[in-house]
């Protein structure tokens, strides 16, 4: 049974979009994600695999252009519609939702520059792509820099002893790139291009960074093995190595002057999106547990007739509904306000991923022994939710970053 829509301002278009994406997520993404979950990471990314077939379907439906303006042929959805799409896709599969979300990184950055060169090079090929062959990844974390690489504004971010591992040097009209990005780069093993976060000014520490849009098909780029991991196994993640790779200087879209602020802006959008994704994961676990509780007989009664189960279902319901309300508000505010208020996006991410973990954990408990079994999708949702507490910034580090922001606001 669909959840009650509390937002009475939802337009007919929003409702139709929600129903269409929900149907696609349940009918296509969820069964595919369950199949991919059983495969090795190499099988997931193999040519013509189920992963690629699903990504192609999403590109055919234009879901990859959610954030790209309709001036370029994208969907250019409003903030609420954007939240709806991300939540509903993740209802079917968090891994596919993350993969699709990352796919637009270069085109999205290019749409902020909006000059002819950027439009032709990065936006048009992405929008016109129907086979998922044009796909970005977010090249930010590194072997020695996980969540700390996102903690702009904190004292360590300006420590010259702590700098990004991907270094650049200028050579004529190009930058030469050397270094490595971490195993956790979503779409890393398969992406055709990367929004690469590099160091330009070591004396400024991490704040001396830059962002460049880099072609990954060129000589000088190699990839690590796709990561074999616990949750979101349908999402390909892996290292990228840069060995004298080349980036045209004009594709260095952000330099050290505005790197810290652009990192914040990126984090605000990414974390708000995570809030939407994990609302979807929580809703999926809640729906499955509620349904199961009406069918499974224990102690001579349906599970849902036991008061302890009713209490658990109510707690899950509250967490899911609050996650939706808060993450929608955070996304709507920060997609309507530039520069965004980053702490609300961080709060949305931290709150919703924790809610998803709590709800999936309760769902496993309601399923009992079957909750541990691969006969039901609950154990997968639990593993997917657990990954959410670490990806896109670990919740502990993000909380420190947002806490630092709160204190700076009242003391500076």
């Amino acid at each position, binding site marked *: 049974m669909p959840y009650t829509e509390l937002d009475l301002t939802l337009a007919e278009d929003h409702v139709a979009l929600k129903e269409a994406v929900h149907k696609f997520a349940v009918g296509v993404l969820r069964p595919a994600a369950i199949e991919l979950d059983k495969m090795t990471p190499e099988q997931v990314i193999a040519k013509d695999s189920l992963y690629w077939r699903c990504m192609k379907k999403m590109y055919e439906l234009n879901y990859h252009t959610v954030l790209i303006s309709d001036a370029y042929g994208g969907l250019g959805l409003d903030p609420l519609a954007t939240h709806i799409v991300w939540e509903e896709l993740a209802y079917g599969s968090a891994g596919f939702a993350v993969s699709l979300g990352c796919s637009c990184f270069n085109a999205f950055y290019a749409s*902020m520059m909006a000059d002819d060169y950027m439009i032709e090079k990065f936006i048009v090929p992405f929008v016109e792509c129907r086979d998922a062959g044009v796909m970005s990844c977010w090249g930010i974390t590194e072997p020695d820099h996980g969540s700390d690489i996102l903690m702009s504004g904190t004292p360590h971010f300006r420590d010259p002893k702590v700098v990004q591992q991907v270094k650049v040097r200028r050579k004529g009209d190009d930058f030469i790139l050397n270094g490595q990005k971490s195993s956790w780069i979503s779409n890393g093993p398969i992406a055709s291009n990367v929004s690469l976060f590099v160091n330009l000014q070591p004396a400024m520490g991490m704040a001396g960074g830059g962002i460049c849009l880099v072609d990954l098909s060129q000589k000088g780029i190699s990839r690590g093995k796709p990561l074999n991991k616990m949750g979101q196994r349908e999402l390909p993640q892996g290292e990228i190595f840069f060995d004298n790779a080349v980036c045209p200087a004009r594709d260095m879209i952000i330099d050290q002057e505005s790197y810290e602020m652009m990192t914040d802006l990126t984090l605000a959008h990414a974390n708000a999106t995570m809030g939407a994704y994990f609302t979807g994961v929580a809703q999926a676990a809640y729906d499955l547990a509620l349904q199961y509780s009406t069918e499974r007989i224990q102690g001579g009664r349906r599970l849902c007739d036991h008061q302890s189960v009713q209490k658990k279902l109510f707690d899950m319901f509250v967490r899911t509904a609050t996650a939706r309300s808060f993450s929608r508000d955070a996304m709507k505010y920060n997609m309507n306000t530039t*520069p965004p208020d980053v702490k609300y996006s961080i709060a949305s991410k931290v709150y919703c991923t924790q809610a998803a973990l709590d709800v999936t954990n309760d769902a496993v408990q309601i399923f009992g022994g079957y909750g541990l079994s691969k006969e039901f999708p609950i154990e997968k949702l639990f593993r997917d939710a657990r990954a959410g507490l670490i990806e896109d910034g670990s919740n502990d580090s993000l909380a420190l970053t947002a806490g630092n922001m709160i204190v700076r606001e009242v003391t500076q």
Partner: protein
Amino acid sequence: MAVFERTDTMYRILGGLFEGLVKDPSVGPKFVESDIIIKFTISDPDGEIWLSPNNGGEVICGPYGLSPTIEMTLSGDTCHRFWLQEISMPIALAKGLIKAKGPLPKVLKLLPLLKPAYAAYPGIAKENGLEVKGA
């Protein structure tokens, strides 16, 4: 010292720039179709410039009682640098030089429509005795 010494000078120069933009055949119809009302709230010198799709596209300099779809808050100097393309939108937004209220997709949708204004502004600025580097 501010690039625009007085509000009326700013209105004349930037208002003229926007008038040319909404009358441009490659921009005007798309702007009207977008149904977006833009308010520029400018400081140093203080002023407001509105772009409305009403009446086939109009520019209003000074207070105006509409509800904007997008409100951009920025200084006169940032306006000047932006139209000279000395500063890009993402950098201006990231640095807080431009603060935007309104749906980001609509803000981004406007950017490609600004091209004729980028081309026209250096000449307009020069004609009005404003500093244009490299001119």
